[in-house]
């Protein structure tokens, strides 16, 4: 194919400072297939795109190579420009001379040579490109939200308000998440449950929301606009339709075990509703601890249930639903207890974490809102708060900042002062990070008005002496060693991704960072999208953040879904496999290699209807374009558009 146009971008000085653009133009113009070469400061700018458009029309270009940044950045931009100029957009390729050349090499001569070589390869490829037509697929206007914390609740409510049928999936018996556990929230000190529970009730009452609690995501198939998800309903052993939520069963149940909702400080029964405002207000039987399931005796709950809702025979149920988009809002967990041995966390009863303290502060919590030492139930006189317990500590595997601890520790010290007048609150911190509306003022209030003592420095060790905890630390502002006799120590333990975050990411086909937080499509410009089209992120599953940020991101994710659903049909890139039916012998090796189950069988018949042969057929709406079938096909009868053998070999041929 003659008539290739090459457009070399300076990207300001990003490319031009390490690549000699003019020499590139000179060399590239010598290539056989190239009929037009030019360069410009910013090809992606509107004048830059106009240069491309005019050249396509005036020089009758049959293919275009833009040598600029990564195709992941601007391929779409330039393809759109080509289309506007009347060139099939798939006759355009990019040569990545910024991210993979000028930014990573410093020797100008070598970088220039490499840029020329990269362009040569792209030119060779584009001569083999074929014009392609976009594929249109329908969009299912239903959404799945995974995780029923504040992030998931907000996303689901926003979607439902727009009339979108939404499935909200929550693996514990009730929605509410960590926010339901909190007492009061910074920086306004409004009661967490008072602002959360109305939203939870709205979820339950909204006709557009189907709530799946005590359920987990089992499997995801399909692609944007057309996902097929399998949901596992774990057996509750309580008939949701019959149960009235009277709570008699949990009153009479003889088994008591530490309650997860109270972070182990309070107790719950084997049949339980996690907290009084739970949505739905339906108990579950914890099979592991129920006497009937363990020993085959008891059945007290069945006897007392006036509705006859208890059903010990209930089995896990699997349901399949079709949705067009998925929002992942699976939240976080706190660093496990065993990581901080030097602070005695997990060994000393009076060393607790922030969430445990939160449950203590809560009026509906296990201590009815009193701050009491877990060891002897006495009110503490001196409470030490240690920030960055795990966070910002590469040795513990958490080099990042958990972002909310400075604020909630200030809040804890303040609430403690309110609850126990005369108590001494001492906060050890590394830095106070109070970036947020009203945050700095809040921390100052804790320090200056409420009289909490803030000490800049780390704690090296905590040990027990009598019924006191000796906290050994350092005050780095005065440079002195400190020893505090504390009654209670509260650790601001690090926020970590859910333990099974990676497994979920693999089910969904989204990426995650080295810690297990889900990765957004672009750290600045696409913060709620994932690398997988149709899957969006909200809340702490992406990174630690506070409630206002979580809610903002959740609404952002919902609006992205709504934008997606504003189309009846989606346009998909035609980068899919095609079968050469003449040469296909129908071995169907491709069928086995296809991870998307996109290959079906097609019968080829003669005029009178006799079967000649069966061949493979690729479903264009289902094919993901990975190319596994192309390599598997022994006869070489499958072509992957956009990455065909011709195209890839052309690149290799000009090495």
């Amino acid at each position: 194919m003659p008539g290739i146009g090459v457009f070399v971008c300076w990207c300001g000085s990003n490319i031009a400072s390490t690549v000699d653009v003019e020499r590139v133009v000179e060399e590239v113009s010598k290539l056989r297939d190239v009929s037009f070469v030019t360069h410009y400061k910013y090809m992606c700018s509107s004048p830059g795109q106009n240069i491309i458009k005019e050249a396509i029309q005036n020089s009758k270009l049959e293919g275009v190579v833009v040598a600029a940044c990564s195709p992941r950045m601007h391929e779409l931009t330039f393809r759109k420009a080509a289309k506007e100029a009347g060139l099939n957009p798939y006759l355009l390729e990019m040569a990545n001379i910024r991210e993979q050349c000028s930014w990573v090499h410093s020797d100008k001569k070598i970088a220039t040579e490499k840029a020329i070589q990269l362009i040569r390869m792209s030119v060779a490829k584009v001569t083999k490109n074929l014009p392609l037509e976009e594929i249109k697929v329908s969009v299912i206007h239903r959404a799945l939200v995974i995780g029923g914390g504040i992030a998931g609740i907000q996303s689901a409510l926003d979607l439902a308000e727009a009339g979108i049928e939404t499935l909200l999936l929550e693996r514990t018996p009730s929605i509410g998440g960590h926010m339901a556990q909190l007492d009061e929230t910074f920086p306004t000190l409004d009661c967490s449950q008072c602002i959360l529970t109305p939203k939870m009730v709205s979820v339950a009452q909204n006709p557009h929301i189907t709530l799946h609690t005590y359920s987990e995501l089992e499997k995801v198939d399909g692609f944007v606009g057309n996902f097929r998800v399998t949901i596992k309903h774990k057996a509750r052993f309580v008939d949701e339709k019959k149960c009235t939520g009277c709570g008699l069963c949990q009153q009479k149940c003889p088994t008591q075990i530490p309650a997860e909702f109270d972070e182990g400080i309070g107790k719950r029964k084997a049949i339980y509703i996690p907290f009084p405002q739970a949505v739905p207000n339906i108990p579950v039987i914890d099979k592991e601890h129920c006497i009937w399931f363990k020993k085959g005796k008891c059945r007290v709950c069945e006897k007392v249930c006036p509705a006859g809702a208890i059903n010990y025979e209930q089995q896990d149920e699997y349901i399949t639903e079709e949705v067009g988009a998925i929002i992942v809002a699976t939240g976080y967990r706190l660093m496990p207890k065993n990581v901080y041995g030097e602070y005695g966390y997990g060994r000393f009863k009076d060393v607790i974490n922030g969430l445990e303290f939160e449950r203590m502060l809560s009026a509906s919590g296990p201590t009815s809102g009193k701050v009491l030492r877990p060891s002897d139930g006495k009110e503490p006189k001196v409470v030490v708060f240690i920030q960055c317990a795990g966070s910002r500590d590469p040795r513990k595997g958490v080099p990042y900042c958990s972002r909310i601890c400075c604020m909630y520790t200030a809040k804890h010290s303040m609430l403690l002062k309110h609850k126990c007048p005369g108590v001494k609150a001492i906060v050890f911190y590394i830095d106070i990070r109070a970036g947020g509306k009203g945050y700095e003022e809040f921390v100052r209030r804790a320090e200056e008005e409420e009289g909490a003592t803030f000490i800049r420095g780390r704690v090296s060790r905590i040990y027990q002496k009598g019924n006191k905890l000796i906290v050994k630390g350092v005050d780095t502002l005065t440079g002195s060693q400190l020893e505090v006799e504390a009654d209670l120590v509260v650790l601001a333990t690090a926020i970590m991704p859910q333990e099974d975050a990676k497994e979920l990411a693999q089910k969904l086909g989204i990426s995650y960072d080295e810690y297990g937080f889900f990765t957004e499509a672009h750290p600045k410009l696409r913060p709620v999208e994932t690398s997988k089209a149709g899957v969006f992120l909200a809340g702490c599953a992406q990174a630690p953040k506070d409630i206002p940020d979580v809610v903002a991101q959740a609404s952002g994710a919902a609006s992205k879904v709504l934008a997606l659903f504003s189309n009846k049909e989606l346009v998909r890139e035609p980068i899919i496999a095609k079968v050469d039916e003449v040469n296909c012998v129908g071995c169907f090796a491709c069928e086995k290699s296809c991870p998307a189950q996109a290959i079906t069988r097609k019968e080829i018949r003669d005029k009178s209807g006799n079967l000649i042969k069966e061949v493979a057929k690729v479903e264009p709406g289902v094919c993901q374009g990975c190319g596994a079938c192309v390599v598997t096909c022994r006869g070489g009868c499958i072509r992957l558009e956009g990455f065909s053998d011709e195209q890839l070999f052309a690149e290799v041929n000009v090495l």
Partner: protein
Amino acid sequence: MNEKGWRPKIVAFVCNWCTYAGADLAGTVRLSYSPEVLLIRVPCSGRVTPFMVLKAFERGADAVLISGCHPGDCHYGSGNYLARRRFHLFKQLMEFVGINPNRLWLSWVSASEGGKFANLIDKMVNEIKSLGKFNYSMEETKGEGTPKHS
């Protein structure tokens, strides 16, 4: 045996979702690595055929890298497993026909591992430098399939 000033040529077939993005990240954060590598973008490491690798050697590559998502993280589910199996076998074939299998590298680099990508390329370039220029007629392994000079 290497000419003076010789620099190896390395061809890297990288998947669009992980390693290509990882290489982009190396650029975005301005890491620096050896320029001897040329990337060919493929949708998935499972798209790479042994023929492409052979062709690359034929066309003057001194080494070939195939890199995709970490096991379990494939954008398509299982493409990287296909690549792993395929090229594990293919390396044995390389030895058989007399190409040093150390000239073919397989590595998993995720989209967040810009640093790993840069280190990988540097390491590879260093090792290939010590292996020397690829020249099939005077290779390398003593595989039973080693061709005789004609």
